[in-house]
């Protein structure tokens, strides 16, 4: 349904003038009005898959035969000196640990992926793996804040907020920036907050169930008819008041915001209602099939939101109070298969589905984590935090798949080729959406603040597109 059609469906004429102004994007009234990207770009929306807690790169997308060969040996003192660890007491005394999983080539391009992600492996022709990622934070919360906001402290706008600040959104009846998580995270809401940008740009958390957004449901005992009656009453009083306060666009916007709230109350449940999806689609995402059901639903919902014009959707896999990638500290062989099994099939399904619907070209899919995990063993069966070299991948949004960019050293310790940090990745995502990271600024406390601060020189969009 287009915005115009939606507008045409307004039956009661309530707040119509103001609403038309908002929907058609008078920017002073509606900060979320859709804007044309300043630079040419294919990507219109982003699905950001965040693997919370730290995924081991050497066990997923960055095979290290040397690590297997030297399994049980110490790291050279020289290399050991270059890293700090969280729980491993002394990196120079810890032993190297080869990956317990086999790597096999995927797609016609043959990019190797471990047995943890057999389904994603079939999609490698659409995926560009970036193996030279690094971060300078080795605790979760600062690393997550750095990844999502460009600063290791909480309180700055997140990537999704910057993107919606820069581009607005296509569907005014749904939030512009949607977050779906497993609940509690190690960084909390500041990782998807708006920081110093207006609250309108903050990530809206979607939960599963019929009331996906907080306060979306009418209060207990309030039927749709009662709700509509109260909304009309508010509107009547506001209109009376407005007669003595003419030409105040702020008051108009507030009146319109109630109409938008009402529309959201029906648009959001419609968006999350998967009952009309075919059995084949549900199967593609692993819905109804045990471990994949939850993440599968999130992925399918992400596709439905993309179809409806939502600009930025962030899916978080892992939680601070339950199953998490970070359990790899003491239980690599148990936790990583557990976590990968939740999302492998759904992610592959999402890519296939987007592709078959012609949406993959306009949707950038990003898979990443706040850091990797040590090639060194923590205890018998663990890996520690490791920000010095790790992997991510991207697909869709016009980029060319089937390739591997950047590299870590032979043991997977340090990123050595095409080293990119969070700023470079964020600059790249902005560029793929048609925005130059140095131009996207917001004046705060006397500074033109940027997502990439004074960094982001390693932006690599051109290499992804080539």
């Amino acid at each position: 349904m287009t915005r115009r059609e939606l507008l045409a469906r307004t039956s009661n004429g309530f707040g119509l003038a103001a609403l038309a102004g908002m929907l058609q994007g008078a920017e002073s009234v509606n900060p979320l009005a859709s804007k044309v990207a300043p630079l040419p770009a294919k990507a219109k929306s982003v699905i950001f898959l965040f693997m919370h807690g730290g995924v081991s790169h050497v066990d997923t997308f960055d095979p290290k035969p040397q690590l297997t060969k030297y399994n049980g040996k110490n790291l050279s003192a020289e290399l050991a000196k270059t890293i700090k660890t969280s729980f491993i007491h002394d990196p120079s005394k810890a032993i190297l640990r080869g990956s317990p999983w086999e790597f096999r080539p995927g797609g016609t391009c043959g990019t190797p992926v471990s047995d943890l992600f057999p389904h994603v492996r079939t999609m490698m022709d659409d995926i560009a793996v970036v193996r030279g990622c690094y971060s300078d934070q080795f605790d979760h919360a600062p690393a997550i804040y750095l990844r999502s906001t460009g600063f290791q402290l909480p309180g700055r706008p997140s990537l999704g907020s910057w993107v919606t600040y820069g581009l607005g959104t296509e569907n005014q009846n749904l939030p512009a920036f949607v977050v779906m998580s497993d609940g509690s995270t190690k960084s909390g809401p500041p990782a998807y907050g708006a920081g110093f940008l207006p609250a309108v740009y903050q990530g809206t958390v979607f939960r599963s169930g019929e009331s996906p957004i907080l306060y979306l449901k009418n209060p207990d005992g309030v039927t749709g008819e009662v709700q509509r009656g109260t909304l009309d009453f508010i509107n009547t009083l506001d209109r009376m008041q407005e007669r003595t306060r003419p030409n105040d666009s702020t008051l108009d916007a507030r009146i319109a915001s109630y109409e938008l709230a009402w529309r959201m109350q029906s648009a959001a449940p419609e968006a999350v209602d998967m009952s009309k999806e075919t059995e084949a689609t549900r199967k593609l995402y692993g819905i109804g099939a045990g471990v994949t059901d939850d993440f599968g639903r999130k992925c399918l919902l992400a596709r439905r939101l993309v179809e409806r014009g939502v600009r930025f959707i962030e899916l978080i896999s892992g939680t601070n109070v339950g199953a998490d990638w970070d359990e790899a500290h003491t239980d690599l062989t148990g936790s990583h298969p557990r976590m990968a099994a939740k999302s492998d099939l759904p992610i592959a399904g999402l890519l296939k589905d987007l592709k078959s619907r012609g949406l993959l070209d306009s949707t950038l899919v990003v898979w990443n984590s706040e850091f990797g995990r040590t090639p060194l063993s923590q205890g018998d069966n663990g890996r520690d935090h490791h920000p010095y070299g790790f992997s991510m991948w991207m697909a869709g949004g016009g980029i060319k798949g089937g390739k591997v960019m950047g590299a870590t050293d032979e043991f997977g310790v340090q990123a050595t080729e095409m080293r990119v940090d969070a700023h470079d990745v964020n600059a790249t995502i902005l560029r793929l959406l048609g925005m130059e990271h140095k131009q996207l600024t917001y004046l705060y406390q006397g500074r033109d603040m940027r997502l990439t601060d004074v960094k982001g020189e390693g932006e690599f969009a051109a290499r992804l597109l080539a």
Partner: protein
Amino acid sequence: MIPGKAKDSLLYQAVAHLGALKMPPGPALTVEEVQAIKDWIDGGAPWSSGKWWAFEKPVRPTVPANAANPAANPIDAFVDQKLRSAGLAPAPEADRLTLIRRASYDLLGLPPTKEQIDQFLSDKAPAAWERVIDALLASPRYGEKWGRHWLDLARYGDTAGFEQDPYLLLAWRYRDYVVKSFNDDKPYDRFAKEQIAGDELYPGDPEARTGTGFYRVGTNRDMLFKVEDVNLVEKRTDMVDTTAAVFLGMTVGCARCHDHKFDPIPQRDFYRMQAIFQPAVSGQVFLDYNPARFYGVAENSRTFKLWQISTEIANINHKYQGQLKEKKLAALSPELQAAFRAPEEKRTPDQLRLVSENPNVVKIAQTEIDAILSQADQERMAAISKRLLQTFTGYGPPPISDGITDVGRESPKTFVAIRGNPEAFGEEVRPGFPAALGGGDIPEPPPHAASTLRRKALAEWMARAENPLFGRVMVNRIWQFHFGAGLAKSPSDFGIRGGNPTHPELLDWLATEFAAKGWSMKAMHKLMMTSAAYQRSANPSDAAQAKDPANELLSHMSRRRLEAEEIRDASLLVTGELNLKMGGVPVVPLLSKEEMFGMIGNPTSAWMVTADAAEHKRRSIYLIARRTFQQPMAQAFDGPDGVLTCSRRNESTTAPQSLALLNSGFTMDRAKALGVLVKDSAAAWERVYGRPPSPEEMSAADRFLAKQQGLLGSREAAMAQLVRGLMNTNEFLYVD
């Protein structure tokens, strides 16, 4: 070059390649560089003259003659002169209900009560307005409202932030100190000095030393280990940034890495300021010496006692764990039994996997042990419970607050960090003041000094009338919270990016008046609020809307939305539920499960709801400020997150706000509470708006009530809907 007009300036035309002359010869400047030159020229090309208004000492200007009204408030003389020369007429005076509502929200953050309104409406004396202001300024609610403004600046929070988000257990002592300071009308120079250097200036005054809590209530990374060096750098940077922004309106953050691009702040000056804080360390302030000392001793022995008690419990438990575990093991499959029974280091990979995949099968809960305790052990446990209870009876917060102090007379050295990298040591610097403000070194302390006295020097240098920024910045903040925007638009950035003030003479006159009135903030409120400019209607004339849409000339009052706290506090006040208890340990209100979604950690420890429900209805300033979890309603309405100093909140309008205000349990609870108190719509109008309904409103309300009563089946439920509606209207949410 024509300052202020880049497009007409040859310099800009040349670098932007707009005309025949193209500069520089060779490759053109980058888009960014050209933009920087354009910004500089459009900003008035400061420094081409070598001077910037904000760094020059304010000189008290002559108040312009006001022939029409010679007795007028001097503020109006300045404002009206500009209005006249722009050819704009001031808006008429607002009606009295609007005025008292405006004054009450501005000073107290609450709407006026019916009694206050009636009194003002019937007071025909010329001094009626002044009496309203005096009464409001005398209310303890004043400190709660203006203290909140200050806490935004002080990036206040009750937790440290980051993944564990531990409590800053005593931060609220600083919050209470701020509220009290405003209520006492503590002179602003004293208030500033206490916060910067209360320990060095007033060592014998615990309240003054509590002011140094300013440096303890921000985020801190101390819980992150193995990065102590980074933690320290971040702490010092926060100290310098926040001090400069709050007290001087200077943004120095970018000088951490390089010389400031726009303002005359070389990188060296940033580190000279950082050197002032180099010796600062956390300190405890004993509010009441002996009780604080005894508290420390008692806590010490209590902790020791707890260690012993926990050993006793463990010893009792131990006797039963073996048999319980054996029972659980026996019920498992042979493979699992073998895996768990094998010593950890001898487990095969398969056994390791089995153990890790079944983490809970042999876990023993305390309840299982309790169920099989022997009579004697039951008695032992009961005795332990009693002792535990005794240990905690009367346990409460200590008479101690968190502050800072110096490590001693000798400070660690400070070096310029090359490109902001703390490991790349540049030249060593001495503590001193920014050259742009006159500069100056801080001397070595006397031989027997207890501390370096650097912060004392800073505080004294800062808080004086000759400092060009100190008075201007604060008086501009006060102005902003009365008029909606400062005379200088960026209240924490008086540098070149902040631009010129709209009324430079007025700002200087106010700054000098502030000093002359002994830095009394209450005197400034009264001065501003008794101006005609403050008392104008919020409706602009057509001419004003066309010529001055941003209302920079103050032809009328700027309408504003209530802040997050005001919405909550006003809702509780009009329903008669607001609990006015002041101060103390932060209150944790009850939230729904949905509202707590995404919180770091388990709510049983991260959100321990305050037991006494009456506490949940206290003013918002007393609710807990968790850095990683803002309450959803506050977050929706642009509440502060307490991470960076915030000089002006956003005032956004969003659909999620409307959803929150319509559908939250908070609103429904208020609506129900008032719904049963009011007998008819007229009474509801009086409570929520402070005025009777018009006949038109009355009939709309009657129709509404009849219809909702039909749908809901009861008058009470319909009345609750009416109240819910009123609390969602613009009349309730905006201040005219």
